[in-house]
């Protein structure tokens, strides 16, 4: 598997997971939703964020290629660093979310941020090596 495929694979996985999390959240299941016992506690606003960013990830996976795709994966990581820090500082995102983010939410944000940055960075360094 080349790094292009890895970047595409990660963007696909992140996109599918985020879109699924967003859609499941609207169904208010015990996995994702606003119920007290939900694994990942979200409200509709948070579901929309997951859905939108998941669609962005899927666009990166299937709408871009080569260096643009790799840069976009890094950019996606930066986006989730911003989201992670913002939600960490204020679990209700300054009152926008009616349900405060719990630990699994922070973990999802952190994992998407770290893996996107790492996968993108390594793919980028490969592109630089190729340019040399």
């Amino acid at each position, binding site marked *: *598997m*080349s*790094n*292009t495929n*890895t*970047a595409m*694979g*990660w963007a696909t*996985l992140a996109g599918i997971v985020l879109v699924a999390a967003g859609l499941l959240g609207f169904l208010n299941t*015990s*996995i994702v939703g606003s119920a007290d*016992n939900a*694994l*990942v506690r979200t409200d*509709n*606003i948070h579901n*929309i*964020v997951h859905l*939108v*960013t998941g669609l*962005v990830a899927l666009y*990166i996976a299937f709408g*871009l*290629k*080569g*260096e*643009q*795709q790799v*840069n*976009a994966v*890094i*950019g*996606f990581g*930066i*986006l989730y660093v*911003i989201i992670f820090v913002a939600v960490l500082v204020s679990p209700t995102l300054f009152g*926008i979310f009616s349900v405060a983010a719990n*630990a*699994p939410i922070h*973990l*999802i944000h952190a*994992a998407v941020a*770290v*893996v996107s940055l*790492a*996968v993108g960075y*390594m*793919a*980028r*360094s*490969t*592109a630089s*090596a*190729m340019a*040399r």
Partner: protein
Amino acid sequence: MPGLGHGGHDSVMLIAAAVLVIGGAIFIAISFRTRPARSGPAAFDVPKTGGSSPSVRRSLVQIMAGLSAGAAVIHLVAAPHHYGEIGDLAAGFLVAAAFQAGWTVACLSGPSGPSRRVMAIGVVGNLAIVLAWLYTRTIGLPIGPFAGSAEPVGFPDGASVVFELLLVVALVIRWRDLDLVVSRRAFARTAASIAVVPFVSLVIVLTSLATVAVASGLDHGAPSGVVSSGHASIH
């Protein structure tokens, strides 16, 4: 999970955490393994044609289009609600939305972005919209049921104004060809290319949230009933 106690719930969270960490680690490990040695053969299959880093100008154009489209969507979704409050004056929302949507298309149509004429129209139009908003937030509409009553700043209109002001700043950068100056550096080209995704994604997310706020009647920081007994404005 229904019926799960605290112990079971915690176990599920631990499993979810493990899956995420292990899954992410696998992708990082694969990336690391396929990363070539500095002098070795490249495993990265960047296509020879297409897919390379776009110029700073192209990245700037994409960001400008995103900002204009976001503001257009917010104006469009805000229109029906305001028709019920201020009647035909709410047509201003539709005019603003049509202008910003049309400008987005014009911005993306050229091979190197908007022409100087399109840029000038963008600056004047968006500044006019921002000034109209500022007027309604400080003095109030000159006519209509809420004439002379200043409107509170809400999340959707605040987001829209931020988009418009950032768009004007970007247009000034483009007008003065500052993007071409920084474009000489490879780092700047890469940074601009990377910045497009978080920038445009945040615009999309904020626009989505603003749309929900309008649909929920929270566009002025209070539920619909409260808003309708207060005041509204053209922006």
